[in-house]
């Protein structure tokens, strides 16, 4: 048993606590943040490599065996998300130093950020349904706090919406956990899978599954539970917007995939039409919303809704190819969208607004920004050879293979709109002439993470084969739940 599996939770949690204690030592905090960020990246990558080499890993917290203690489980899917999360998080942390103004803000922000990170990693690793609830809560609570800490009017407005829906969803989560515990008498997800298997078509199981879709769908901004997203993503401090769109909405997606590939395997057919319908609506409405916006961050926020629809479409195919496509989509979209949000933050710093009509001239002011932004735009638009192309390609291929023509058609139409609204936004910001000079100069420190993520999106396109293979391997693993169950329940 190696401790590698628990480190992605321990390090950020310990860092957060340390940052709280180092409240009055800005320099020490800076060092701690730097070191532990790098450490987390190293740990997450080596964990992914280990899982890839040795198969699914499990860890007994407190030394209690499954199903009695809380088991941490790392399979390829969670490993991939851990790595994706840490890439985005490192960029967001770096960005935040230049983005935030006072030391008081930074002290609070970074402590909360590392709590958030710990919760995110925990959500990906936990093998216990109630622990997942707790992890979700830590994620949510950190988001509430990070969203409202700067106290802008829009943030307060978004905050009240998010927290109301968040509390509602937490209650529903508890209701669902209650139902499933009453039914199967256990909380460990692998054990639940075993216990529920013979009774998969009991009405209670379907009800619980649907409640979980409601709860996780709210986190993932699946229509019609997406209402919070545009406001929250557009008003949150930019590093948090990047985290939200890049990785945090994927926590919900992850959870849905996990339960439907482990606990409710036999309900896949029962839920397929439902999920695909929601996915199509999400794709379409998100894109429509994005077309309607005049505020760049809101364009990106609606775009995230739309892209979540794509991911759910991949899930809804319930095939290895579809799930592999969805996983690759998660990776690719995470990086691209984080880059775009961070780019939007650069603009916000320059002019203090996100209204696109107030911006312009970026081609003259900073060609390099224009380029990074454009890479993001074309990647998300699905132009090859960027990774965005492969994410859409795989999805469409999986859909056509499974004979889901209608969703594929919707996806194709929507992807046109995606390209359209992104190009429009890019033009308005980079090409249009703008009389007013920016209030602040462009901060090159802010540009670094934008560029890193944009280039990563490109690299992910050029060297997509290993990542695609990894995503598909993860998908195959997901469709062989016995592996997971054995790793948890078998010899440990």
């Amino acid at each position, binding site marked *: 048993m190696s*401790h590698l599996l628990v480190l992605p939770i*321990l390090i950020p949690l310990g860092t957060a606590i340390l940052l709280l204690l180092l*409240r009055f030592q800005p320099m020490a905090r800076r060092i701690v943040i730097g070191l532990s960020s790098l450490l987390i990246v190293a740990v997450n990558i080596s964990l992914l490599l280990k899982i890839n080499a040795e198969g699914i890993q499990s860890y007994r*917290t407190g030394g209690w065996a499954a199903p009695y203690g809380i088991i941490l489980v790392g399979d390829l899917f969670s490993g991939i998300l851990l790595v994706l999360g840490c890439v985005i998080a490192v960029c967001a942390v770096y960005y935040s130093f230049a983005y935030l103004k006072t030391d008081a803000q930074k002290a609070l922000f970074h402590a909360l950020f590392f709590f958030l990170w710990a919760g995110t990693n925990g959500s990906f690793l936990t093998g216990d349904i109630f622990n997942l609830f707790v992890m979700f809560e830590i994620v949510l609570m950190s988001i509430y706090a990070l969203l409202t800490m700067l106290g802008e009017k829009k943030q307060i407005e978004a905050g009240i919406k998010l927290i109301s829906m968040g509390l509602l969803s937490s209650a529903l989560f508890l209701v669902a956990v209650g139902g499933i515990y009453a039914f199967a008498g256990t909380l460990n997800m692998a054990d639940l899978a075993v216990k529920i298997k013979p009774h998969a078509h009991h009405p209670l199981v379907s009800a619980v599954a649907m409640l979980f879709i409601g709860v996780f769908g709210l986190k993932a901004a699946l229509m019609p539970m997406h209402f919070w997203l545009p406001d929250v993503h557009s008003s949150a401090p930019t590093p948090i917007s990047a985290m939200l769109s890049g990785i945090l909405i994927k926590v919900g997606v992850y959870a849905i995939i996990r339960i439907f590939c482990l606990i409710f395997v036999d309900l896949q057919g029962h839920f397929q039409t439902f999920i695909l319908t929601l996915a199509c609506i999400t794709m379409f409405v998100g894109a429509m919303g994005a077309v309607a916006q005049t505020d760049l961050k809101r364009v990106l926020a609606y775009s995230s809704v739309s892209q979540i629809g794509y991911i759910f479409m991949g899930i809804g195919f319930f095939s290895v190819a579809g799930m592999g496509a969805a996983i690759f989509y998660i990776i690719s979209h995470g990086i691209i969208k984080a880059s775009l949000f961070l780019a939007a933050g650069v603009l916000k710093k320059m002019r203090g607004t996100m209204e696109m009509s107030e911006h312009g001239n970026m081609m003259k002011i900073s060609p390099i920004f224009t380029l990074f932004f454009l890479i993001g735009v074309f990647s998300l638009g699905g132009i090859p050879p960027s990774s965005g192309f492969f994410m859409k390609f795989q999805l469409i291929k999986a859909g056509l293979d499974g004979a889901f023509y209608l969703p594929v058609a919707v996806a194709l139409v929507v992807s046109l709109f995606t390209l359209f609204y992104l190009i429009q936004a890019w033009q308005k910001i980079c090409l249009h002439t703008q009389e007013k000079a920016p209030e602040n100069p462009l901060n090159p420190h802010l540009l670094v993470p934008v560029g890193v993520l944009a280039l990563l999106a490109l690299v992910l396109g050029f060297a997509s084969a290993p990542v695609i293979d990894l995503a598909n391997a993860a998908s195959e693993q997901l469709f062989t739940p016995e592996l997971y169950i054995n790793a948890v329940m078998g010899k440990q």
Partner: protein
Amino acid sequence: MNSLIFKTITKVVSPILMIFSLYLLLRGHQLPGGGFIAGLMTSAGFVMIYLAYGCERFDFKHRSRVFYFMFSGGLALSFLTGLAGLFVGGYFLKSGVAHVEMPLIHENWEFASAAVFDIGVYLVVCGVCVSLMTLLGEEE
């Protein structure tokens, strides 16, 4: 001007409340109680003091840093207990029970690491509740 009667009663009740909360904390592993309950109980005691004497008498405003480090320290304590489990017991949060022969009184005392964890919980709950009160009370 707050009621004199209430203030006097607070002087009597709040120390009892505190010692009762410590009792609940330390026996939580065996009987109802534990970190949450005790922490909330202690904060109820502080609330009572706040209600009776306002911010000034106990000087909540200037002690807010104490409560801040109370909850961060509590978090650190729980976390370190977990880490100790990792280094000593082989798993994160692995608990251990030690039986120690106490000097002078020659009794065999049982120390559970989970109790230390619970004390961390206690500190967090208490620190957070009082911080919340202070923050809001100060607004008032």
